[in-house]
């Protein structure tokens, strides 16, 4: 172990010890207020972000963790996401009273899992990262067992995570049978002819498919989105999925190109069914969290359009799309969390009627996030779709590109439907006093949306310079 290794491990050490520190604050004899705990959590996350800038890239530790620009960018994204989630949970009326040191330390641990998963170079490391990321999540989903549906959502997520872990592990062991090593770079060098590598990677893909809510593994995902408290939904709808996507890209596109080429038809089919299933199921949906769940299934389909292209253009498009996807969903769910009522979220679309006029900043933020999801310029969503569909055309997949464009058109309907309700006149003037929104929520929503627009105007900040 050299000093440089220790510097590169800094963010992981800070997150791990930070989680334990926050837990430890709870057993102090003096009462520590929730605000102080949240402040400590945010300081730990900021320290972690600063520590990633000290990384020497590219660097690798014992074939276990790899540090390059890709992992740095996405580890920083996960930390930013965790900061936003902490702020949102602090002002979220339902969790406010129940949010103590355990809740915050679980957020830190799940961020640690994401960071490990993003930068893992070894399948065992990836498995451990995947579990550190998912086990805190099912505790967070069922955080308030008295809340309607919370337990049901928690159990469904736990079962899905268990099945995902089983498939991921079986894929890992079959890859090990094939090449006698668990390092994914070594796997790529010792690919044998038979079908074993493709089967192993397909099993890994199934394991990750459960996490990404890819069709046909999407059955319970809308239920989970609906059941979880809105800040937790924001967490696993955005950065968790980005982390899983980045590991998938690292595995398939950066290390196992031959297997990637062998699996292109499979990716093609998954892209088509995910897009259609997501968009058609979202079309008549009246529950906003379920609607966003179905729309994110469709977005995973668009990312698979880029992956199915099988060239370096597709890879860069998928990386950019993962980033844009995380930011857009974080923005949309942040608004849902900010507008929640005491005791429950606003569920149906009708509950949001006229809120865009009452809260102009949140209304504009929701408009930016949803138009980005729909794919209008100058947002990141537009550039992401442009790059993804462009790579499909470049690879000669014209039919796939046309199907994707048709799906984008279908999706416009339900995104605009939300916005129409959001900015509609209220049915009757209730005359109630509008409670001012907490500043922390507003700042985080504005930051996310400025990222969405900024990345849409300057996409070359992200798309250039990957290996």
């Amino acid at each position, binding site marked *: 172990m050299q000093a440089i290794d220790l510097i590169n491990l800094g963010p992981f050490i800070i997150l791990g010890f930070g989680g334990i520190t926050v837990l430890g604050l709870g057993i102090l004899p003096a009462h520590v207020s929730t605000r102080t705990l949240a402040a400590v959590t945010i300081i730990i996350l900021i320290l972690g972000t600063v520590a990633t800038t000290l990384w020497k890239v590219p660097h690798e530790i014992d074939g276990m963790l790899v540090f390059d620009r890709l992992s740095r960018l996405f580890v920083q994204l996960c930390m930013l996401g965790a900061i936003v989630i902490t702020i949102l949970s602090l002002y979220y009326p339902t969790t406010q009273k129940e949010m103590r040191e355990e809740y915050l330390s679980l957020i830190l641990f799940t961020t640690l899992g994401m960071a490990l998963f993003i930068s893992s170079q070894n399948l065992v490391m990836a498995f451990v990262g995947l579990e550190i990321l998912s086990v805190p999540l*099912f505790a967070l989903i*069922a955080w308030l067992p008295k809340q309607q549906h919370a337990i049901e959502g928690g159990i469904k997520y736990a079962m899905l995570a268990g099945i995902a872990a089983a498939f991921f*592990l079986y894929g890992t062991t079959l890859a090990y049978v094939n090449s*006698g090593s668990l390092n994914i770079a070594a796997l790529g060098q010792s690919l044998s002819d038979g079908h074993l590598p493709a089967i192993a990677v397909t099993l890994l893909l199934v394991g990750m498919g459960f996490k990404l809510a890819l069709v046909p593994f999407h059955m319970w995902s809308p239920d989970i989105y609906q059941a979880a408290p809105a800040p937790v939904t924001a967490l696993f709808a955005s950065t968790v999925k980005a982390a899983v996507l980045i590991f998938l890209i690292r595995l398939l596109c950066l290390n196992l190109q031959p297997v990637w080429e062998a699996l292109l038809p499979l990716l093609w089919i998954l892209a088509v069914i995910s897009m259609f299933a997501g968009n058609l199921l979202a079309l008549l949906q009246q529950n906003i969290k379920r609607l966003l769940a179905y729309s994110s299934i469709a977005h995973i389909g668009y990312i698979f359009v880029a992956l199915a292209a099988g060239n370096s253009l597709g890879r860069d498009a998928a990386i950019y799309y993962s980033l844009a996807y995380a930011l857009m969903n974080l923005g949309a769910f942040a608004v849902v969390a900010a507008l929640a009522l005491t005791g429950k979220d606003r569920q149906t679309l009708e509950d949001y009627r006229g809120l865009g006029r009452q809260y102009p900043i949140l209304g504009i933020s929701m408009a930016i996030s949803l138009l980005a999801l729909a794919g209008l310029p100058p947002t990141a969503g537009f550039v992401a779709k442009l790059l993804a569909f462009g790579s499909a055309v470049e690879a000669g997949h014209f039919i796939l590109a046309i199907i994707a464009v048709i799906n984008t058109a279908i999706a416009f309907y339900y995104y605009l439907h939300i916005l129409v309700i959001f900015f509609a006149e209220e049915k009757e003037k209730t005359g109630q006093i509008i409670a001012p929104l907490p500043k922390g929520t507003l700042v985080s929503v504005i930051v996310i949306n400025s990222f969405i627009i900024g990345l849409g105007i300057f996409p070359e900040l992200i798309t250039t310079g990957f290996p």
Partner: protein
Amino acid sequence: MIPLSHSLIIAALLFSLGLLIILVRRELLFILMGLEVMFNGAALTAIAAGQYWKNADGQILTIFLTVVTAAELAIALILVWLAFEHLNTTRADKLNLLKDNIDRGPP
């Protein structure tokens, strides 16, 4: 010396058996048992392959697998207990309160 293919076939059978249990049984505890059987299928593959390649990675993988999945199942069991406590059921098909809402309501 048992050839690698024999152990791999047994492990694949174990894995499919676990998957079958998950797909067929409706009782949450049985689903968790099915998961455990799937994990054991993976563990057997890892140990057999470790023997074949004559390195310790397979055994290390198995140790990690056992510890991490035990932790995961512990949390899942707590959730099942919570379901029994609050919803009075441990059957997966009774957990059906969350559904699509496509009713537009009165205009």
